[in-house]
C-alpha cells in the first residue's frame, strides 16, 4: 500500500480526480468538435457586429482561425475556469479541508514534520494538475485530425501545460491560505475572490488606460492560449508562474508549521 503522504493523498482524491478528468475531456471534445462550424465564413461576419471591448474581453479577436478558436474556447474561459476551480478545490482540501475533517490531526501526530506534509501535499496537487493538463492535451490531440486543426502537437502540449500551471497557481494559493488559517470555507472564499479579481484584472482593467499595469500582475495574463498555440511555450510567463507556485507552497509550509492545528 502507500508509503508516503503524497501517494496516499492522490489515492484519497481519486474519485474527484476521475470526475474532473471526465469533465475536462467532455468539455474539450464538445467545444473542439464545434471548430469546423466556426471556420465557416458566416461566423466572422457575425463577430464583426459585436462590440470590440466584448470581443477583446472574451478573447474572440481571432475566432475563426484554429489557434484563435481553440485558444478562446477549449483553452479559454471555460477551460481556465474549470482548471482553476479544480485546483482551488483540491488545494483547499490539502490543508484546511483535511484539518476540518480531523484527518490532519492524526497525520501530524505521526512521525512526519508539518513542512514535509505540506510539501508532499503540494507534490500531490501538482501531479493532479498535470493529470488535468494531460487529459486536455490527449483529448485535443485525438480531435486534431478529425477536425483538421493543423496546430503543431508541441504547441497543443504547451497550451495544456500552461493552462494546468494557471490552475496550479491558484491551487497553491489555496494551500498558502490554508497554511495560515485552517478553515476550508475561508480558504475557498479568499482564493476564489483572488481568482475573480485576477481575471478581471486581465480582462477588464486593460480597457481603462490608467489600469493597464494591473494586468501584468494577474496570473491570467501569464497565460495567453492563442499566442501559445501559435508560437509555443511562453517561457518567461511559465517560469514566473512556477516561481509564484513555489512561493505560495513555501508560505503554506512556513505558516502551517508555526500555528496551532485543529482549533
Amino acid at each position: 500500500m502507500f508509503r508516503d503522504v503524497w501517494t496516499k493523498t492522490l489515492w484519497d482524491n481519486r474519485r474527484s480526480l476521475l470526475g474532473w478528468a471526465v469533465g475536462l475531456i467532455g468539455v474539450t471534445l464538445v467545444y473542439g468538435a464545434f471548430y469546423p462550424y466556426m471556420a465557416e465564413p458566416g461566423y466572422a461576419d457575425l463577430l464583426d457586429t459585436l462590440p470590440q471591448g466584448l470581443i477583446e474581453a472574451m478573447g474572440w479577436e481571432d475566432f475563426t482561425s484554429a489557434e484563435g478558436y481553440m485558444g478562446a474556447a477549449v483553452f479559454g474561459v471555460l477551460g481556465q475556469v474549470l482548471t482553476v476551480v479544480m485546483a482551488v478545490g483540491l488545494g483547499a482540501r490539502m490543508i484546511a479541508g483535511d484539518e476540518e475533517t480531523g484527518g490532519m490531526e492524526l497525520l501530524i501526530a505521526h512521525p512526519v514534520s508539518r513542512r514535509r506534509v505540506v510539501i508532499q501535499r503540494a507534490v500531490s496537487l501538482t501531479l493532479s494538475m498535470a493529470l488535468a493538463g494531460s487529459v486536455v492535451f490527449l483529448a485535443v490531440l485525438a480531435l486534431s485530425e478529425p477536425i483538421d486543426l493543423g496546430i503543431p502537437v508541441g504547441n497543443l502540449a504547451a497550451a495544456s501545460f500552461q493552462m494546468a500551471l494557471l490552475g496550479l497557481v491558484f491551487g497553491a494559493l489555496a494551500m498558502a491560505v490554508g497554511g495560515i488559517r485552517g478553515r476550508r470555507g475561508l480558504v475557498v472564499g479568499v482564493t476564489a475572490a483572488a481568482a475573480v479579481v485576477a481575471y478581471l484584472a486581465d480582462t477588464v482593467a486593460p480597457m481603462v488606460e490608467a489600469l493597464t499595469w494591473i494586468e501584468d500582475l494577474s496570473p491570467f495574463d501569464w497565460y495567453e492560449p492563442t499566442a501559445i498555440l501559435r508560437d509555443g511555450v511562453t517561457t518567461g510567463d511559465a517560469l514566473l508562474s512556477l516561481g509564484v507556485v513555489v512561493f505560495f507552497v513555501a508560505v503554506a509550509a512556513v505558516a502551517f508549521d508555526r500555528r496551532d492545528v485543529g482549533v
Partner: protein
Amino acid sequence: MADEAILTSRLTKSYGPVLALDHLDLEVRRGEIFGFLGPNGAGKTTAIRLFLDLLRPDSGQVTVLGLDPRAQGVELRRRVGYLPGDFTVDGNQTARQLLTYLGNLRGGIRRDRIEGLAERLDLDLDQKIRSLSKGNRQKVGLIQAFMHEPELLILDEPTSGLDPLMAREFLTMTLEARARGQTVFMSSHILSEVQKVADRAGIIRRGELIAVDEVEALRAKSLRRVEVTFDEPVDASAFADVRGVSDLVVEDGVLRCRLLGEADALVKAVARYRVRDFISEEPDLEELFFHYYAEGTDGVS
C-alpha cells in the same frame, strides 16, 4: 534520559480570551498508568494536544520522553502512540488500508500485529471505515495507537463509544502495556474507569490541575449517591451516625444519602433490615472536585 514520561511546568494555553490551561504542573512517571480526569471542556484535550505539538503553548514548558515537542517533534511522535479524542478519518477506505498506511508512516508495522489487535477487539479490518459503528471506529483508533508498541501511549477518552466488554478488553491492554514497560496516559471523565487500572490520577477543572493523587486515595475521597429500598419501615436515626454518610433522608422505606469513601459501614448498617434494592451510583467527579476545593480552602485533611 529523563525519568518522567511527561513533565510540564506552568504550561499555559488560551484560545483568544478563553484560558484553556492555566499554569499546569504535571509529572507523569515512566511505566505508570496515569489517569487524567476532568469534565468535558476542562482542558484535558488542550493539554494532550500540547504534548504532541499540535498546539503551541502561550507560556511554560513541556517535555515528553525528555524531548521538546516543538524542536524534536518527529522523534517524539515516533515513540508515542496517540488516540485523538475525536477519531475521524476519511471513511472511504478499509480499516486495514488506513492502519497499513499509518504503520508505513512509522516505517512499517508487522501485519500480524495489526491482525492480532483487531482480533482481540473483534474488529473486521476489511470493512470500509464509513460503514463502521462509532465503537468500531474507536477500535481502529486504539489499534493505530497501540500497534507499534510505543514507549508512551497518550489516549484521549479511549473508551468513548466502546461497549462495556470492549472497554474491559481495552483496560486489559493498558495493563499489559504497563507490564511491558510502556507508559499510559489516558484522559477520562469517568473516575471508575480510570480507577480500575491507573496508578495515579490528576484531576483538572477549568484549566487548572486541582489534585494529583494515588488512585486509592482518590477513591477514599470520592463521594457517591446511594439509594436503598427496604421491605420494612426504617428509621433515619439508625443510619445517622454511620461512617461516611451525609445528606441522609429516609421516607416511605427508601433511604437516600451521600457516601464518602468505602461502603463497608453503610452496607453493614443496612443489612440489619430486609433490603429490596441497593443502588450505588458512580462517584461524581464534580463532587470529588468540590471535596478537593473544600479541602483546599478550609485546610481540612
